[in-house]
């Protein structure tokens, strides 16, 4: 399945990845190669098959816990890992002009 540079750019934008022109070319070729391999799934008969998204403990399922507040990490400890903060919140570059 051929995949062109424009498609690569579109997907890179969706994924919030800045790619160099060299990466665009390389990924176009490599993704095409992998997609060509994946094409084999189109030949599998999946008529009437329910998709499997949870392969865990079917008996237990995915129970929700009670929606009650519990202890959380101290703010300064969490902010200490941020590239930029003002002591109360994470700071990001300007969004609105």
């Amino acid at each position, binding site marked *: 399945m051929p*995949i062109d540079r424009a*498609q*690569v750019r*579109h*997907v*890179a*934008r*969706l*994924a*919030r*990845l*800045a*790619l160099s022109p060299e*990466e665009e070319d390389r*990924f176009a070729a*490599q*993704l095409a*190669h*992998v*997609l060509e*391999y*994946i094409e*084999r*799934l*189109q030949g*599998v008969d*999946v008529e009437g*098959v*329910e*998709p*499997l*998204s*949870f*392969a*865990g*403990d079917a008996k*237990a399922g*995915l*129970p*929700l*816990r009670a929606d009650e507040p519990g202890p959380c*990490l101290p703010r300064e*400890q*969490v902010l*200490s*890992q*941020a*590239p*930029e903060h003002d002591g109360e919140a*994470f700071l*990001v*570059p*300007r*969004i609105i002009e």
Partner: protein
Amino acid sequence: MKADLLPLSGISDALAAGEVSPEALLEASLERIRALDARLRAFLRLTEAEARTAAKASSQRRKSKKPLGPLDGVPVGLKDIFCMEGVETTCGSKILRGYVPPYDATVVRKLKQAGAVIVGKLNMDEFAMGSSTENSAFGPTMNPWDLSRTPGGSSGGSAAAVAARMVAGALGTDTGGSIRQPAAMVGCAGMKPTYGRVSRFGAIAFASSLDQVGPLAQDVRGVAYLLSAIAGHDPNDQTSSPRPVPDYAATLDKSVRGLRIGVPAEYFGEGLAPEVEKAVRAGVDKLRAQGCEIREISLPNSPHAIATYYIVATAEASSNLARYDGVRYGHRAKANQLLEMYEKTRAEGFGAEVKRRIMLGTYALSAGYYDAYYLRAQKVRALIRRDFDQAFAAVDAVLSPTSPTTAFRLGEKMDDPLAMYLNDVYTVPANLAGLPGISVPAGFDSKSLPIGLQLIGKPFEEETLLRIARAAEPAAQRAPPIVEGR
């Protein structure tokens, strides 16, 4: 024999008998790391100070005959995917360089509570994406049996450290074979438990419907000790099962007589190295000689597993890795606008394989392609699971090679992503089906490279699986020559 060269269970016995102290074991571990790791590069960083404190406390408990269990005082390592409070955790990625988690992963907390001495953080493919540890942003790990070859991956540092006797045990994660394949490549035992058996809280996510935490050790008993310590329900991981955790070591030596072992034709076909096949078939004979009933079976949808996996895993990864946006932690690129900041941060922070998988996963989930790729893959996944369900009506475990070849050379598959992916052809199905799987050593090829034998079990029947693995493993696995300085 020096105690620190024994497999984990032997070390545990020596500790219990008072023949060696946790502190002496830790010093031996650190000494071997200093002697070997400049060549192997299994560790990303050591936690020497924390380890000394833990070893000292353990010594006190051992002296007063009040050990916390078989792991009390045993030196272990952690794949750098596990958050450890106060210790840099990078997941093999530049984007997390300098990240110091404010909490312990549940499995790290449980290991500490079991008295294990955590020696350091181990190398891995970036975000666990790879089968050779070459995708680490911090350089590859070498295979202790041949320094020109990879130790497999993505838990390659964990496997190499165990095989080279730098630690007695280690934790890894397995999304498509990342514990079992490296265990096979270095000649140790490594287990992926049932999906839901072990909490992933604090284990950095790759593909959440496939990721599972598991142990590596030189022997199956060691794996059982580690699994007993880390398994169990955790309110912080919704997928973790409330089923009680048995003492996995207690039933290890029960006879395997009468257990039925399925040998799937699809796992012995094209691409399997003849020497690997021969060794694995010898493993079949070994189990037959102990009274197991061997049955030929078919898992007809196995040939679709890799294609299915690379859609499901990359789609989930593209979503999980969206969190690396330069806002709350990790690397941030210099930029004047928010969108530009996101795009540059991720461009600078992620390596080539991670970008490739994010691209593939984003493509598979994008408008117009979702039904053709992701939804279809989840349906084929259901067929793969159905194959196993049908097989398990007639057998207690499935036996196969862990990997089609022994360890490959560094650089050999780096330019061909698909060739690298196909290395996981026998391990991926257990992840897709949520089943427990284990790799145990099964001899060597003519180049003296280790061969792994895989056993796949029924959901939550790790006891039976470990028992069969115990019967299949060698009486003793020799250490790589590098360990003895030969």
